């Protein structure tokens, strides 16, 4: 498994806490992940619109990844909770060697609207494994002029 760019709990920034959720890469489990996102945002004093946005953004990111995930693979979703923002990294092992997350879809545009920052990562798989595909998004707690 590739790491998440040094996001192990011991290495996180001061004042941050990390929550990691791993599920089967199944659309049926996304409601659980978005519930975690919503709960973390509420506890971090996000405003109500920002909570709604994060819940929807996490749902969108996970749905996008589950679409390209290999059968019986794992969806890994890490939440880095900091003061006034939450960073989310979601990733799966893709089912096809050339799997990509397409960024010219309606869903991706919605994701860009919901998150303050969002990027997609592709890493080639080692050995016989498919590539790792990940989405990283950043959401601030609120008070942003829109």
């Amino acid at each position, binding site marked *: 498994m590739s790491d998440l760019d040094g996001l192990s709990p011991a290495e996180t920034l001061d004042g941050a806490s990390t929550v990691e959720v791993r599920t089967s890469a199944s659309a049926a489990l*996304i409601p659980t992940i978005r519930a975690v996102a919503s709960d973390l945002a509420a506890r971090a004093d996000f405003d109500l619109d920002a909570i*709604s*946005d994060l819940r929807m953004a996490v749902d969108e990111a996970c749905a996008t990844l589950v679409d390209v995930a290999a059968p019986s693979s794992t969806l890994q979703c890490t939440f880095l909770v900091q003061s006034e923002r939450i960073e989310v990294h979601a990733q799966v092992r893709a089912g096809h060697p050339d799997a990509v997350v397409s960024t010219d879809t309606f869903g991706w545009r919605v994701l860009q609207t919901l998150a303050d920052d969002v990027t997609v990562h592709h890493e080639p798989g080692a050995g016989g494994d498919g590539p790792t595909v990940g989405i990283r998004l950043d959401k601030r707690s609120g008070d942003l002029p829109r």
Partner: protein
Amino acid sequence: MAEPAPLGSEAPAAEAAGDFLDTAITRPRPGAAVLGVQGEVDTLTATLFADAVAELVDGPEPTLVVDLTGVTFLASSGLAVLIQGAHRAEKRNARLRLVVTTRAVRRPLEITGTDQLFDMHSDVHDAIGGDD
């Protein structure tokens, strides 16, 4: 060790979807049809939602209402269904009316600008009022 199967993993998504989304079309007065929706509209349930919206929009009534009061989550896949419905209604010179009372529905519609495609109402009686 046998692990319990994740919810829905054995059933096709469309089959599992009925557990999480309820839809029903009612006709509270001649010329008006209301699609009532309850549950979460996401990638699991979007197809079911799309079928229900298509049935509403393809019906004969001039006044078309989607009552989203009971919707607790609306993903982009659900927004896409609503947008398709708006376009389909437009082709027959109708405009979809949405009943929206909760943040879970209002926020996604507003932040994406999708609300501009619909007549927005805060209750069903208001939405079915008037002709056309």
